[in-house]
Each structure stands twice: as structure tokens, then as C-alpha cells.
């Protein structure tokens, strides 16, 4: 029983690992689609909650895979999902780094570095939209997102401070 679940987790996360150009943000859209719409492991709002946890915690946002794996198949599910999301991309990176240093004069180096950027940009924005949709956001959240984006782009305010203040304000608003 659990073996099939482990296998399904690997089948979901390993391909995403290879496609996460630009980091975990790039695959949030497809992950949300797979986990919520295709496999029905989580509801949209639950997915948004786990996304929030993974962004509030230290470490890469791809660790959301650990939370999903845990939800699906317990602690070992978390381990399997985490390995599935990191190992395939890690081998690609290891190979690419070796190739990079072995081919100092190759014109493909610049082409690779520049050519992957538009792909990453498109996927990162798609990921942001997917979370907004999954979370069924309200006007307040949209304003928060816009404000935080502005702060992060134009100021040097620390992300810890932003998170603490936001969580506090939202909790207080709920309390009142």
C-alpha cells in the first residue's frame, strides 16, 4: 500500500525536479495542479497553507514537497518526496558544473546561462498566479502581496520582519 504511495510521490516530484528552472517557484503552478486537481491529496486552501509554511520556514521553498509527502504517506513519505524533489536536479547541476569547467571556450556556455532566464521568469510568474488562485485570495491578501513585492524590490527591509508583522496583523484582524 505504502509502496504505491511512495512510487506515486516519486512520479509526481522527480519530473518536477528536473523542470524547476529558477528554483522552487517555477514548479509551484504544476505542483498545485498535480496535488490538488489530479491526485486530490490536498484542497486548494490546504495547499496554500503548506505553501505559506514552506515560505515561512528556513530553507528552499521546494521543501513544500516534504510537507506534501508527509500528508500522503507519513514520515517516510516526507523523506521520499524530499529525495525525489532534490536528487534529479542535483545530478543535472553536478553534470552541468563539470561540463562548465571542462569547456571554458564553448559558446554554449553563454547561450545556456542566458537562454534559461526567460524560461525561469515565465514559470516563476505562473507559480505566483497558481498560489493566488489556490488560496482563493481576498482583496487584503492582494494588497499584502503587492506591498511585500514593492518592499522586497525597492527597500532592504528584512523578510523576517515583514513576515512577523503580517502574521500578527492578520491574526489580530481575525481576533477582532
Amino acid at each position, binding site marked *: 500500500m505504502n509502496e504505491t504511495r511512495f512510487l506515486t510521490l516519486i512520479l509526481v516530484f522527480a519530473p518536477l525536479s528536473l523542470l524547476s528552472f529558477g528554483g522552487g517557484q517555477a514548479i509551484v503552478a504544476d505542483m498545485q495542479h498535480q496535488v490538488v486537481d489530479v491526485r486530490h491529496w490536498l484542497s486548494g486552501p490546504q495547499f496554500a497553507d503548506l505553501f505559506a509554511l514552506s515560505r515561512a520556514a528556513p530553507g528552499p521553498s521546494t521543501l513544500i514537497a516534504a510537507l506534501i509527502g*508527509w500528508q500522503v504517506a507519513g514520515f517516510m513519505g516526507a523523506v521520499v518526496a524530499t529525495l525525489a524533489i532534490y536528487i534529479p536536479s542535483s545530478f543535472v547541476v553536478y553534470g552541468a558544473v563539470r561540463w562548465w569547467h571542462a569547456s571554458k571556450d564553448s559558446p554554449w556556455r553563454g547561450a545556456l*546561462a542566458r537562454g534559461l532566464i526567460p524560461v525561469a*521568469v515565465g514559470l516563476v510568474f505562473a507559480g505566483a498566479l497558481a498560489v493566488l488562485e489556490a488560496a482563493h485570495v481576498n482583496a487584503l491578501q492582494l494588497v499584502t502581496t503587492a506591498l511585500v513585492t514593492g518592499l522586497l524590490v525597492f527597500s532592504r527591509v528584512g523578510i523576517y520582519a515583514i513576515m512577523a508583522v503580517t502574521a500578527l496583523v492578520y491574526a489580530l484582524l481575525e481576533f477582532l
Partner: protein
Amino acid sequence: MSSEPTAHKPHVPLLDLMGVFFRVGITSFGGSTAAWLYRELVERRGWMDEEHFLTALTLAQVLPGANPVNLSIYVGSQLRGGIGGAAAALGMIGPPFCVILALGYLYRQFGSSAIVHAALAGLAAVGVGMTLSIGLKLAKKVRKPIPVLIAATLFVTVGVLHWPMIPMVIVLTPASILLERFKGGKPVP
């Protein structure tokens, strides 16, 4: 600043290597990893020079995988080969993995509380803001019409229309790289 040319590689014990990434992994998040690693690897320990670090950062960003993990693999494998890459990545992922499971446990206990749910809704909005700010910083490097078109196509098809991502990426990624390859441009250090 005090960077030496890394013609000779410094000898770095595996445990030291893992220790540095372990410390950075547990203290940094939300894109600050690169800044911490820069301080540890370039400024404090002199394991890499600045230019080398910037190359590592660019590759870590554009290749698939989480940037901090990719950076660990790059640095670890440069200093100690494949085993070094694995040790650095493990150091980087281990502590956050434990933290996120602890948070997941708390979420199971208290996730049904309205106040917790409200705070998480706020944090999700912050998380999307973090994602957007990363996207905007990357987007500054996309200026020419065809790369902009490639980025926009991916956003609209995958994000708005919910087309499956895998075929879109498999088609557009080689197209984008080939385009950069054959229109010529400045070489990357």
C-alpha cells in the same frame, strides 16, 4: 574582498564543508542564502574568489533545482568532488527539513484554529510577494522581444490557461538556448 586567485584549491575537510552549509542552511531563508554563503565562503574563509562565486550563483539560479541546494553542490563539488557536493547539499537541506516537519506537526495540531489560519493566509500572501520579487529581479535581464515572448508564453499557457508544464518547457527551453547561441553575444566568464 580578500579574495585570492583559486589556482590552487584550498584543502577543505569534509566536516568543515558540511558545517558551513549546515549553519547557513539553518539561519537563512527567503533568498538570503546567497548573501550568507558569500560572506562565509569568499570573505571569511577564502575558499573561492568573488568572480567564481558569481558564476556559481548564476548557474545555480538558471539550472533546475532550488538555488541554495544548487549552490551547495557547485561549491562542494568544486572543493571536494562529488562527495563534497553531496555533503554540502545534505548540510544545507538537513536542518530546514527538520524545521519544516516540526512546523507541519504544529499545523496539524493547530491548523484548524481560525487565528492560525488567518496568520497563514497572511504568510501565503507574503510568500507570493517573495516569489514575485524574485521574478521581477530575474525579469530585468529579459529585454529583447523574443525572450520576452518566451517568458510571456510560458506565463500565459502554464499560469493562466493551466496547460501542462512539461511539454511547454521541453519545447521552449531548447528553443530559447538555441536562439541565444546563434544570435551571438558576449561570452560569459
